[in-house]
């Protein structure tokens, strides 16, 4: 083999390993300025990334930093270190590998700056800080390669933009730096390559063989599927059977609360006491580590988990993946499926469990998309300005800079290649004096302009504060949960502060699969006691709520249009047929509205198919309009597909409610006083350095921060509504929680094609909306039975036999 030395060849022979074609290609093109590898999980992506570095380091180690590895997960950096040390040891190489994350001690960090290892494994936040030191030129001198792992995940978040900005700094110092991106299977590899190299055509894209198609199906026991809900509890026995039949099973859920509830009931039904564990982002770190290592050692038969296991670590012998609830997004489903059978070239085995009747349609549509390899993805917007503000401050920490040079450097990244000078200058001004219409801080500017045209920190000591504040992921303010009794009781995990605040002594909730009783809130810790005998009263958690992707919504509508029922259970088909005879099925490029009376209320059902966030926003905007028309709207509920509104008076002309101009106008009005805006503002203000996250020596308590960010928001709204922060906040909310962009797109493609069905009673498709809880439902058999009875009654009312 041409590209590797004798020593490597012997090592491979000894292990009886043969390099995959994509690993060889990565070696062949390793001297190119950039490379991108697209490979499914288990295809030896990491080795493909590191092999060229190891080959080069065989002869050149010990000369400072050679390779920088960046991962979105701290845990992944630590894991990769273990995985790298093995071949390095076996090969007898003298290569130093160290990780540097938020968990690394300041002593080690100092030493790393003085004497960098050959290979440094880090995260975007830690890298951003590393570039902000005055001695950055010395640290990065001689750097040869940078490997960005899981770049598809970074691409979709602000952390990716932050990373590209940090890399632009390093490229300024070492222009010959070679960039390597490692990505899971994505719909648009070119977009990722452009992101890595800012559109220069220097980046060969290698695609690994995707292996045999996955063996994936919907759970076939689908009698008595519930009408609503998202937990999939009805399938617990079937899931247990499957766990029994397989070596190791991963059971994915879409939210942490659902994972908790499912885990709890799984154990109640787990008569054989199969070793099954729970893993999600709100659990205590040590507990997660215990689960991970038990998993690697093959001690577990199953893990109930959430997105916390979407990325990273190789999971040994997983031979089955179960997805509970509609997958919402095809790409994520594919990545989750890839968790099974980590041996390359063996088909992954997966089962999807729809949580309710409508989800069978989404599951079938998703399965079809997986087989056709049709992946969803929204085009990435321009790099956000709050991240740019943070970057400007970090650059200032490293020393004086010239704005023209910095502007050019920023524009050379894949995230900010369309940035205007006007926006850049506004960000610079924000960093310099706050950018307020009222010039107040002339004496206390953060940056001062030198006569030579360069900007510098007024007070060099402020660099410490700026570095402490770095980060683009907004942590929700969380409180640790501990068992009471002994001093420093066992930590169980974390809950959202807002949730903790609603608890009163005696309330029971689920965490880490245990029912605990709230005892007291002491400083930043929630003290609880174990109460296994009790039913948990409450279960809410933070964590992302996924919204169904445009691709999946379109596929569902297309199936409706073709009356394509293949793969659907008979019950679902009957239900859809009934809908189509009583009313109509929703269709592509049209908007179906239904109005009907029920129990002294008048209802409007909007089948927008624009995802939960946007359907929620539609509910808010349309009820405002109804308010204006004095129709007495009483409330609404939203799912990923539809919004149901109820009012005191009949809604006779619902079509006229959907004029885009009116909705946009209403949005302006409503947005400014909205809680979503305040939440977005908090995140934007923290990233851009308007609010400090960490103070040297003390952590600001979450409650105080919440309070003051709302006050700052209100103050700006009152006195400086056009301030940069307000502008960024609005942009953010429009695509994120408010997601008006999707409503606009839908209304534009629908045009006049709005169909209003006036019904005498509710329609089959609207029936489940009456059962939708709006939040994860509270536990209890009685509730389930009531819902079930109610469902039957609703259905017979709708004409079902």
């Amino acid at each position: 083999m041409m590209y590797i030395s004798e020593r490597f060849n012997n090592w491979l022979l000894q292990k009886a390993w043969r390099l995959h074609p994509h690993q060889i290609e990565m070696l062949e093109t390793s001297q190119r300025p950039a490379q991108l590898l697209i490979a499914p999980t288990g295809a030896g992506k990491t080795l493909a990334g590191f092999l060229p570095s190891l080959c080069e380091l065989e002869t050149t180690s010990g000369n400072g930093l050679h390779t920088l590895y960046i991962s979105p997960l701290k845990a992944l950096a630590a894991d990769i270190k273990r995985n790298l040390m093995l071949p390095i040891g076996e090969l007898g190489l003298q290569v130093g590998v160290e990780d540097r994350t938020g968990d690394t001690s300041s002593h080690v960090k100092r030493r790393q700056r003085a004497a960098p290892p050959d290979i440094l494994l880090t995260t975007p936040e830690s890298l951003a800080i590393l570039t902000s030191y005055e001695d950055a030129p010395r640290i990065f001198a001689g750097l040869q390669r940078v490997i960005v792992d899981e770049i598809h995940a970074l691409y979709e978040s602000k952390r990716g933009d932050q990373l590209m900005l940090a890399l632009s700094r390093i490229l300024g110092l070492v222009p010959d730096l070679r960039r390597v991106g490692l990505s899971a299977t994505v719909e648009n590899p070119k977009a990722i390559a452009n992101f890595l190299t800012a559109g220069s055509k220097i980046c060969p894209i290698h695609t690994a063989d995707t292996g045999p198609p996955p063996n994936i199906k919907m759970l076939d026991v689908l009698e008595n599927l519930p009408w609503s809900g998202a937990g999939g509890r009805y399938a617990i026995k079937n899931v247990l059977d499957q766990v029994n039949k397989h070596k190791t099973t991963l059971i994915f859920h879409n939210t942490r609360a659902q994972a908790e509830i499912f885990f709890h009931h799984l154990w109640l039904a787990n008569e054989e006491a199969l070793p099954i564990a729970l893993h999600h982002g709100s659990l205590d770190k040590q507990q997660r580590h215990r689960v991970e290592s038990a998993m690697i050692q093959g001690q577990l038969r199953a893990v109930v988990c959430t997105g916390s296991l979407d990325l990273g670590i190789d999971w040994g012998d997983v031979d089955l993946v179960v997805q509970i609830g509609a997958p919402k997004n095809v790409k994520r489903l594919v990545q989750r499926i890839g968790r099974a059978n980590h041996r390359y070239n063996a088909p992954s085995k997966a089962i999807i469990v729809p949580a309710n009747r409508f989800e069978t349609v989404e599951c079938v549509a998703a399965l079809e998309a997986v087989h056709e390899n049709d992946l969803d993805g929204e085009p990435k917007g321009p790099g956000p300005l709050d991240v740019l503000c943070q970057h400007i401050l970090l650059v200032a920490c490293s020393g004086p800079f010239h704005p023209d040079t910095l502007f050019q450097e920023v524009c050379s990244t894949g995230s900010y290649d369309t940035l205007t000078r006007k926006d850049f200058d506004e960000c610079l001004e924000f960093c310099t004096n706050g950018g307020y219409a009222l010039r107040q801080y002339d004496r206390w500017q953060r940056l001062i302009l030198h006569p030579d045209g360069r900007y510098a920190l007024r007070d060099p000591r402020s660099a410490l504060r700026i570095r402490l504040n770095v980060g683009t992921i907004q942590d929700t303010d969380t409180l640790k949960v501990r068992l009471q009794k002994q001093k420093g009781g066992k930590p169980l995990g974390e809950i959202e502060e807002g949730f903790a605040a609603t608890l009163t002594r005696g309330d029971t909730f689920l965490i880490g699969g245990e029912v605990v009783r709230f005892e007291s809130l002491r400083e930043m810790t929630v003290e609880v006691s174990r109460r296994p005998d009790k039913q948990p009263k409450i279960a809410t958690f933070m964590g992302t709520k996924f919204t169904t992707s445009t691709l999946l919504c379109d596929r569902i509508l297309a199936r409706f249009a073709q009356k394509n029922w293949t793969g659907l259970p008979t019950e679902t088909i009957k239900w859809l047929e009934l809908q189509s005879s009583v009313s109509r099925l929703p269709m592509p490029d049209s908007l179906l509205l239904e109005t009907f009376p029920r129990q002294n209320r008048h209802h409007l059902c909007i089948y927008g198919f624009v995802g939960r966030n946007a359907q929620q926003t539609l509910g808010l905007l349309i009820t405002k309009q109804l308010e204006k028309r004095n129709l007495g709207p009483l409330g609404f509920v939203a799912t990923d597909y539809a919004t149901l509104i109820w009012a005191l008076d009949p809604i006779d002309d619902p079509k006229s409610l959907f004029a885009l101009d009116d909705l946009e106008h209403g949005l302006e009005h409503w947005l400014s006083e909205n809680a979503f805006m305040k939440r977005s503002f908090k995140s934007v203000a923290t990233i851009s350095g308007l609010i400090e996250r960490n103070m040297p020596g003390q952590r600001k308590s979450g409650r105080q921060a919440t309070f003051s960010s709302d006050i700052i928001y209100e103050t700006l709204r009152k006195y400086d509504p056009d301030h940069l922060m307000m502008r960024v906040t609005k942009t953010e909310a429009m695509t994120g929680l408010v997601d008006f962009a999707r409503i606009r797109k839908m209304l534009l493609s629908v045009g006049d094609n709005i169909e209003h069905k006036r019904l005498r009673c509710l329609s089959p498709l609207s029936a489940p909306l009456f059962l939708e809880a709006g939040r994860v439902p509270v536990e209890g058999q009685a509730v389930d039975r009531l819902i079930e009875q109610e469902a039957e009654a609703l259905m017979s009312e709708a004409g079902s036999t």
Partner: protein
Amino acid sequence: MEGYQFTLAGTSLTALGSGALFWPEKRLLCVSDLHLGKADRMMRRGGPMLPPYEVRDTLMRLEADIFSSQAEIIVCLGDSFDDLQAEKSLRNEELLWITRLQAGRSWIWIEGNHDPGPIDMGGTHLQILPIPPLSFRHIPSLGESGEIAGHFHPKVQLKLQGRFISKPCFLLDSDRLVLPAYGTFTGGLKTQSVELSSLMGLEALAILTGKQVDAVPMPRL
């Protein structure tokens, strides 16, 4: 004046929704913890650059209270300035604004822990203001009665029909009244804190600020 009326040491007083206290008999208006110049002080110390509108926002609300109550005596109950230098950072029009409000009224600055010393500004500077049967001071002292104080920025948290609400509040027991912070850039201390739970008697009420001024038993530790 609308608000919550109560008696302390036999004196009729009104807690206003704005967070100010009115004593009708003396035409006295009392506000606590204005923290004027807070944004500037944070910036001066290398902290974040908060929007510089906090002084005018606080003064605007104070002016409205003075006009509508037609108060003749104004008592600022300490921590009126975020530190002794903050006063110098006030803009000219803001200083003039304060002077305008002072004209024709007697104005008392009580010292607080943030502004422990004379400020270069009109009005009387005192550590304690006794107007029997009441006495005004910044930090409450145990064992006193008929005391009007501030310092703690009390706020109350209530669960209302599943919704969680947090508001600055007055705290009232048979011995004293603690005022909420009046300044725009101020946070709050929960009534369940050790400090407030041990300070206030078991019968204490929390009087909520806001459009409708209601009292509830003070939630405690």
